[in-house]
């Protein structure tokens, strides 16, 4: 049903037989258009708000002192961190314990690591052996700060360093 034509002739105009409006209302269009533009622009600004500019997460670099009694190849997990540290032939290595599948924390065991959530298994080098995990566990940068203290940077990965049984 198309809308067109003006008033029909008749003795008494009424609401049911209305006149057409002038079609070209530039002022009205400009006014409504600028209002819509302003509201749209405001909406864009408001949509920026939920994406935080800074995250409250602390520095991923931390210091850790290894216990004297830690045997070669035995995992040490500093409290509150999802990183496992090993002594290996006089060096110290760190590997992330965050499962690459969906972020659960893997547990070290005799053969490597296993994830309790969906059954992924990783060998001692962090490589996936079975389960849904798509990638190997990353090895992290460790710096010797002297005095038995090491600085682990969980934000920096290093090439995998397999831990062979000595």
């Amino acid at each position, binding site marked *: 049903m198309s809308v067109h034509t003006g008033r029909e002739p008749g003795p008494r105009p009424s609401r049911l037989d209305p006149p057409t409006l002038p079609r070209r209302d530039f*002022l*009205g269009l*400009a*006014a*409504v258009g*600028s*209002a819509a*533009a*302003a509201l749209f*622009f*405001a909406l864009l*600004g408001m949509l920026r708000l939920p994406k935080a*500019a*800074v995250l*409250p*997460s*602390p*520095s991923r*670099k*931390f*210091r850790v002192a290894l216990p004297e009694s830690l045997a070669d190849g035995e995992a040490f997990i500093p409290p509150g961190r999802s990183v496992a540290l090993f002594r290996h032939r006089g060096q110290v290595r760190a590997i992330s314990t965050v499962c690459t599948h969906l972020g659960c924390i893997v547990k070290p065991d005799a053969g490597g690591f296993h994830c309790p959530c969906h059954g992924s298994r990783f060998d001692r080098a962090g490589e996936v052996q079975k389960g849904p995990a798509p990638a190997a566990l990353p090895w992290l940068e460790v710096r010797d700060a002297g005095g038995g203290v090491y600085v682990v940077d969980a934000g920096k990965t290093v090439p995998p360093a397999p831990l062979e049984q000595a």
Partner: protein
Amino acid sequence: MAGALRVRASKHLLLWSSLGTLALLGWAAYAENRLQEWRVAQRAYRQALPEDRRAEFAVQLRQVVVPALDVADRCVSCHVGMAAGESGLPGDPLFAAHPDVAHDPGSFGCTVCHGGQGRATSRADAHGDVSHWPGPMIPAADAFAGCGSCHTHLEVPRQDLLERGHALFERHDCLACHRVEERGGTQRPGDAGGMEGPDLSRAGAAGPLPDWHASHLRRLEQELETAAGGPWQSSFAPLPPEERALVDIYLRSRVGAPGLVESKALFHSLGCRGCHPVNGVGGDDGPDLTRMGQRDPGQLDFTGVEGKHTLDGWLREHFRAPGRVVPGSQMPDLALSEEEIDRLTFYMLSLRRTEVPEAFWPADRIRAERFGQREFATDGATLYGTFCAACHGPVGEGMRYPGMPAFPAIAQPAFLAVAGDEFLRQTIAHGRPGRRMPAWADREGGLRPEEIDAVIAHLREMSGVPPPPPDPRPRRWVQADPAAGAPLFAAHCSGCHGPAGGGGEGPALANRALQAAATDTYFYETIRRGRHGTAMPGFSSPSPSRGTLAPDEIESIVAFIRLWEDTP
């Protein structure tokens, strides 16, 4: 067409309101994305980077987050050179890397040491130079005062030993090889690299001092065998043991906070704790200074202070003339030198005592708070300097401050010759109620018995007067008639000590603590011999203005004075 006109007006209003809104939104977006100070700073930083590193540098907010300390410091959004993963640009103070300090700023944040408003991202807000921010930054010149936030109980040695140790260190030319607080040290010749000797700026913080003297001697012998001379021969020679001990004191105080130990040692030589408690130790006549460095400048009265309205400005002016800055202040004008004022201001700024989890407490704070160890040396000289010197003078000569009653000269030989150690102990322990002398043993934060003994020993040492021989008589041996003493007291004593012994120019005798501490011998001998250097004459020797008192007259006066002990 009134209706059409009206709708036209509405459309105009709508159009212009909308356009105005659009313009405001546009300006707000521009200001937020282009004009923010940290963005301007980071763009300048990126421009100053080498070409190849510009691309990987993103202009974004940066911060240091330390949840345990409740720290989220955005300072590194402008001071980009100190941000994680960035390197400083030398030459530009804004973009420089953080100087090497004892603690990694990345694990402690910025505001813990420097103060200011870490959450802010504009210069004035972040530096705290705005209203409604109680903790502005510590001025850069006094930056190491920030150590006091956690190191509340930094141990300080005796001031004069520290100064002598420092002087010896300089005199023996240790700075020829070693670097201390940006001074001294020599680069090794040739391409050997490094310094001739290690940097000793933090020798005291690195654990126990090694036996440096023995190892230096061994090295000296080796050097003399292999090479002929070198710096070892010209710079090092064996030190006598007492000098070694003084150098050790100096080295132990090198903890990476230049100036702080010296300032604190000065504070503990001027007797400030005699009135002011710090960390719960000290008198209670003056305000508690434990958190003086955290006072909100917005809450201070600056009517008597010229210049900038900052805490350090207020403190400096206050040390120059306490009464002008705090009307009615009971603090005497100590006539300090400008250098001393700078140091005391520095120490005051360091009195911060921020609430931090115990895991962050330094060892000396734990030793002090948990095991009761003093943060100052506990030899008699330091204790005297810490608690007594402000009123009784640096060498016990007594002080007269304008508008205050005179403070007694306690190292005076005439006094120490009649005052036995027990009298001194009682006096220090229980004070003089009603006067400014506090009871040091009766209160928390006072002196411990062995410390009181050390102070007494120090008094004896200063004056060179040994304790009087033990008195075989009981404390109250005078048997005379007090009625006979009354007119004598009225004639000879009441002028200075008051008709009812309430004191005036002379001390109050009707004082319970004095009566309890003093023996009859003490009163008797004091009346007989008098006090040199005070208005108290010796009544056994004649003077032009009055006659002498016979021993029985003195005894009757003592008996009269003793009435105040029996019926206080």
